[in-house]
């Protein structure tokens, strides 16, 4: 029995029972549950304030603006950025789209991406220019020779994925970024949505130009995506939305945009959720970092070993725990529908896991050929849940095995 790095009791949703049984939430690659301090921060804003920000001079507006901007500072500090380099948006997808659309690339701009990217790091670039995807090997690790070969085409943008949401592989982005810098002057855009919940990143040390992530995958509320951009690059980015809140001056002939990052934040933002995001960062920072790392390794080992021990499933990704988040994607035997298994794991056993193409269909098709089952753990999970998940999976697969003759029980 291992101990979680965050107390399960901190997460009210885990107290829920469905059909009389407790639940085990193992779909953290999609989103994470929210701890009490995050819920309290959101509730407190609505209970004690509720005013809009950056709009008025009254007391409530001032307080709300202060709390909002203080949250931006917390988020920026967490990734080693300046506050004006962090744009507060809705999600990672919106952040990547803002960059892809705002760089004003020519239609034939050459862009290098990665086959294991989330659709959000593929489709915006496919729309923005001519996208080539770096191949991966059979375990989902990037084909470095192919990457270098693509860089020789002198791309204008290199879109990297820090960690695959399918394989759980953490790519050596420091090395990749160094190779890009050496090969060309491409703008480097990093999707850190899966990695940042598990390991800290310093954007300036990493020497990345843009980085996108979502707070909901790291205990924060939904509706908050963050875009880091180096200030000189952010300043040159064209806002995707215009309107209230992003301008300093408007007259009948034109307008003057506000400075960064405000010029990218048109309209009323998700104030409460952004305040809640700072609470999520505080919560994560309050956990014992050493214990967190150790715990993640234990979860990862349980996930990988559990998959490797079972002949009825294939692990999509490397057969080891090196450079990997606690996530395992499983291909089930032919004829066993992943969606049905996920539903039965939920309804009959209480395990919430994901099925489908994981919004990374090119990779899943390449490595698995069809829909897969994904199990992803986080700070409130423990190894016994992973073991329980595999036992439940074994049980279900035994019922789906095609070998037992029918009717033996009926006289």
């Amino acid at each position, binding site marked *: 029995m291992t101990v979680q790095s965050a107390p399960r009791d901190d997460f009210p949703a885990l107290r829920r029972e469905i059909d*009389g049984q407790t639940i085990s939430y193992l779909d953290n690659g999609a989103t994470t549950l929210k701890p009490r301090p995050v819920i309290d921060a959101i509730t407190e804003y609505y209970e004690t304030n509720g005013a809009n920000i950056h709009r008025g001079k009254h007391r409530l507006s001032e307080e709300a603006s202060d709390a909002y901007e203080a949250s931006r500072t917390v988020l920026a500090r967490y990734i080693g950025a300046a506050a004006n380099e962090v744009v507060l948006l809705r999600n990672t997808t919106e952040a990547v789209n803002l960059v892809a659309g705002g760089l004003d690339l020519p239609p034939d701009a050459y862009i290098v991406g990665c086959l294991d990217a989330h659709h959000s790091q593929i489709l915006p670039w496919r729309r923005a220019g001519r996208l080539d995807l770096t191949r991966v090997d059979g375990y989902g690790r990037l084909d470095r020779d192919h990457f270098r070969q693509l860089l020789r085409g002198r791309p204008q943008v290199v879109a990297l994925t820090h960690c695959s949401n399918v394989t759980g592989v953490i790519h050596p982005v420091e090395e990749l970024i160094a190779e890009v810098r050496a090969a060309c002057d491409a703008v480097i855009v990093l999707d850190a949505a899966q990695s940042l919940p598990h390991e800290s990143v310093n954007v300036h040390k990493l020497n990345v130009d843009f980085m996108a992530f979502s707070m909901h995958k790291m205990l924060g509320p939904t509706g908050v995506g963050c875009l880091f951009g180096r200030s000189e690059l952010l300043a040159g980015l064209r806002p995707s939305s215009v309107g209230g809140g992003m301008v300093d001056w408007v007259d009948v002939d034109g307008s003057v945009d506000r400075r960064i990052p405000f010029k990218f934040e048109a309209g009323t933002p998700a104030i409460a959720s952004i305040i809640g995001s700072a609470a999520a960062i505080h919560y994560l920072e309050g956990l014992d970092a050493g214990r967190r790392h150790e715990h993640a390794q234990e979860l990862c080992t349980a996930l990988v070993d559990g998959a490797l021990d079972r002949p009825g499933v294939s692990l999509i990704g490397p057969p080891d725990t090196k450079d990997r988040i606690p996530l395992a994607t499983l291909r089930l035997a032919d004829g066993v529908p992943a969606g049905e298994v996920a539903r039965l794991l939920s*309804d009959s056993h209480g395990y919430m896991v994901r099925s489908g193409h994981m919004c990374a269909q090119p990779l899943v098709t390449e490595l698995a050929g069809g829909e897969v089952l994904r199990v992803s753990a986080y700070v409130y999970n423990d190894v016994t849940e992973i073991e329980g998940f595999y036992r439940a999976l074994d049980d279900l697969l035994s019922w*789906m095995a*095609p070998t037992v003759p*029918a*009717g033996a*029980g009926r006289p």
Partner: protein
Amino acid sequence: MSDAATFEAVREEITYAFDNTVFFRKHMEASGLRPEDIRDPDDFRRIPPTSKVHYRRNYPAGVLARGYTLNSPNVMRFQSSGTSGDRLNSAIMSYDLARRQATALGVNRRFDALWRPGSRPRICRFAPPNCSDVECATGFSTMEDRILPDGTLVLTVAHDLLATPEWQIVKALDEIESYQPDLLVVDPTHFAFLTRWARRLDRKITSPRHLHTVCGYTLMTRVARRQIEAFMGPDAPIGDMIGMSELGYLGFECDHGQRHINDKDFYVEFVEGGKPVENGRMGELYVTTIDDGLIPRVRYATGDYFTPVGEACACGSELPVVRVEGRATHMVRLPDGRVVTPAAVDAAVGTAPWLDIYKFEQDRTGVCTFRYIPNAAARPDDVAALEARLAETLSPQHVRLEAVDYISAERSGKFQPCVSHISAEAV
């Protein structure tokens, strides 16, 4: 009600379920019961009812009978969205489904022609998309993608019925024409919608074969029935099915327009407050399967209410006549404690030739709203007359009437004509 001979079959089912399923053995033992304790219907009622929750939680390991797997021959697996989101994963033997269907449809002579020796009817289904295990909501799949193992073609329709785009409707009409079915298995509200579009597009819904229509999934309103009958014409047999995904056909409408419950393949009870109701009183349907080798169910509380009529039907069928009342989760609860059933609301609405579709909704505070989409036949006094009928049925609860041009379906894809948030939360 079922006779004593059937009760012997019930005792066999109890013994079989006890000996072969983990769940039911525990269920009996939790009440200190064993199969030999159940000697007559009074003993039988000592068994606590089973429910969807039991079968969802224990599926498959606890409820599949020993010796079967989900891949055994003739096992049909399905995942149902359930009514009001009460979803279920289950399985059924294809021959049990066929047996129950044959018994139920046997009450309606107009459906006799469907079953010819050596052939099975070609079926098209037009129903809420979550009721099927194939991708039918996006409309991007081909006909071949949507043909189930039993040969049923699932037609495409959007999750939000009234938001179904024209191209998808045209596709459904084209596919019916191309597939040439004998039988349409439809949700009546969905099918009425399709007939309205067919009229607008000057299309027909026909087949070179004699086309029959079975309505199920949700309550068949008089408004939907009026439209379906008017469009399909008097020669097209139309019947209302009583059914559940996990059990198949529980009953059917005879050619005299009465609903008959299938008490040959099921032992049926109508229960209120733990006791059987008298004829003419409304009760929840409990069913016990007869000779279900795969997932035997005993005293399975369906959540559906019926009134056993207790009179013979002129059609000659021996299956008991019932009146459909609606689901427990849809009952309208009045401040004075009275309960108004969806069927009673529908009776107050009537065939209402001046409206296309309606939805009656009681919110958590008890406020009732009747939303409807009027058509070109609407006259000013139609609304006033309906308001008066609803007031009479639901008095003293006031009902607000709202003419609208759109009403959303549930996320499950079902369009329920009468819902109550009070009842839904109470159950």
